[in-house]
């Protein structure tokens, strides 16, 4: 008995088993299953799933009235997420890395939205965007400006949602950059100060090179984060008005879980999955090479 226990206490697969089992069943299998179902027709009720070849893909690429809107929105959203939150986060991090009075409190304020549930952020902003009694309606009326229909205007809604997302995400980039800035060699900064280098030159030649790896990480994380955008869109617009704020993740969900066309929903998921993997694999290879270089 003791010997059996000893053996178990030294078996690597036993250590790995719980995590691997749950991970394989609940994270990897759905990924395989979604790929399978994307070649099938299934409405969630029928006992059988019929194999239909590429029909679901042909449909979403050529017939689906919303797919390309969702695709375009996902691209716009990703582009915006790659530019604004990281940029603002970097600026904030640089500023809050200075010896400023109350900087811990300031950092906390910018980070606070990060820890709030995205669905609560959506609910908050929906109320602030309320065209009759909301925050912006009040402020703009006081300024004598007409109130745009933030969430109701199809040309505006996506950007209104993004502003809420931006408000929430800035702190995330900021914290990562702040951590990266700690790796900047203080002696180098001092040396360049003594050399009389200006702030800009100091930033360009000392700080920037030191935080380049951080920048890559922030961008990749922002990218992945943006592809995941679901809760905030669901809560703010549900993809409306007239599907103008649909995104791939949400459209896949709607097709499967609201319209109960699991095949078409699966095909949309696979498109998004392929995009994600297309980003993830090169990144993983990059970070592995970097790790080996560090060794």
């Amino acid at each position, binding site marked *: 008995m003791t010997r059996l226990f000893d053996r178990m206490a030294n078996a690597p697969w036993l250590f790995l088993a719980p995590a691997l089992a*749950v991970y394989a069943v609940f994270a990897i299998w759905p990924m395989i299953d979604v790929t399978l179902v994307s070649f099938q027709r299934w409405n969630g009720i029928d006992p059988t799933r019929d194999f239909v070849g590429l029909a679901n893909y042909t449909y979403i690429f050529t017939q689906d009235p919303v797919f390309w809107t969702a695709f375009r929105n996902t691209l716009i959203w990703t582009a915006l997420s790659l530019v604004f939150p990281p940029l603002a986060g970097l600026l904030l991090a640089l500023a809050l890395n200075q010896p400023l009075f109350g900087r811990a409190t300031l950092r906390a304020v910018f980070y606070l939205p990060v820890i709030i549930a995205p669905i609560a952020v959506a609910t908050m902003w929906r109320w602030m965007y309320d065209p009759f009694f909301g925050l912006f309606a009040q402020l703009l009326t006081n300024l004598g400006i007409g109130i745009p229909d933030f969430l109701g205007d199809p040309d505006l809604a996506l950007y209104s949602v993004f502003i809420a997302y931006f408000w929430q995400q800035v702190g995330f980039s900021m914290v990562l950059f702040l951590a990266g800035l700690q790796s900047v060699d203080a002696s180098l900064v001092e040396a360049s100060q003594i050399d009389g280098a200006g702030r800009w030159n100091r930033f360009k030649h000392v700080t920037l090179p030191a935080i380049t790896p951080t920048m890559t990480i922030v961008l990749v994380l922002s990218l992945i984060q943006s592809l995941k955008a679901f809760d905030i869109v669901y809560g703010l617009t549900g993809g409306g008005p007239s599907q103008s704020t649909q995104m791939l993740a949400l459209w896949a969900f709607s097709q499967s879980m609201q319209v109960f066309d699991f095949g078409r929903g699966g095909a949309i*998921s696979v498109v998004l999955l392929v995009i994600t993997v297309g980003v993830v694999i090169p990144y993983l290879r990059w970070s592995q090479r970097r790790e080996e270089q560090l060794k």
Partner: protein
Amino acid sequence: MKQMIAATRRDPVLMGLWLSLLVFALIWFAPFVFIVFTSLKSSPEIMTSGAFTPPGALVTQNYATAWNRGGFDHAFFNSVFVTVIKVPLGLMIAALSAYALARMKNRWNKLVLLFIVFGTMIPFQVMLAPLFTLVNSLGLVDTYLGLILPYLAFGIPYQIFILHSFFKSVPKELSEAALIDGASHFTTFRRIFLPITLPVMAALLILDFVATWNEFAMALVILQDADKWTLPLGLMSFQGQFSNEYGQLNAAIVMTVLPAVLVYLIFQRYFVSGLTSGAVKG
């Protein structure tokens, strides 16, 4: 602190920077003020008073009404229950795996690690429907277990990744001495590695608490029964039903958000270290 004040005063650029940061911080914080103020106003007051006018008479009744109408007693219990089970359990099995990958001989280690790190990057939002189909086929829809298992699956990869790089950095001598003395890997893990991991574990614990507490999409597909809903689902449903009861709606927001905010304020420093230890230094 005094030095900081002095530095700020000396440098006009820093002074300007500080002022503009202050303005931005106020803007960033303003939504919270607006939400809390609204949550304490009556409906007529909301429609007539200014956004940042403090509430006249505090209508705390909004909280009680929202609590009852939204079934927040159930939602609160469910959120707490799921979080309390899932977070420590997930960390435990993640730590076991991370130890095995970092310290136990196995020629598959590298591949397994890659396989798991891959999971940190894949958005589960893509797989909501198959996840639902899976949980349903196991008969676990509307059960805590049905929610906890997928939560574990999508939570552990990141934790394994972080803990693995931490275990790797522990000096070899420390564990080898124990192993030579005849201790098993499990004992080494429990007696030597767990204690020194506590700070990292604490950081991961807090991060995972917030992530679990806030999770919405998976709960949306797995929990169909209102009695099993977690707080985010309760809030969403409340908004759908009572979007015209602004005071109560905002009270509901505050109640949903408050626990996470409190945890954040108490354990602030762990957040930053938890977020950054893996991503930046690793």
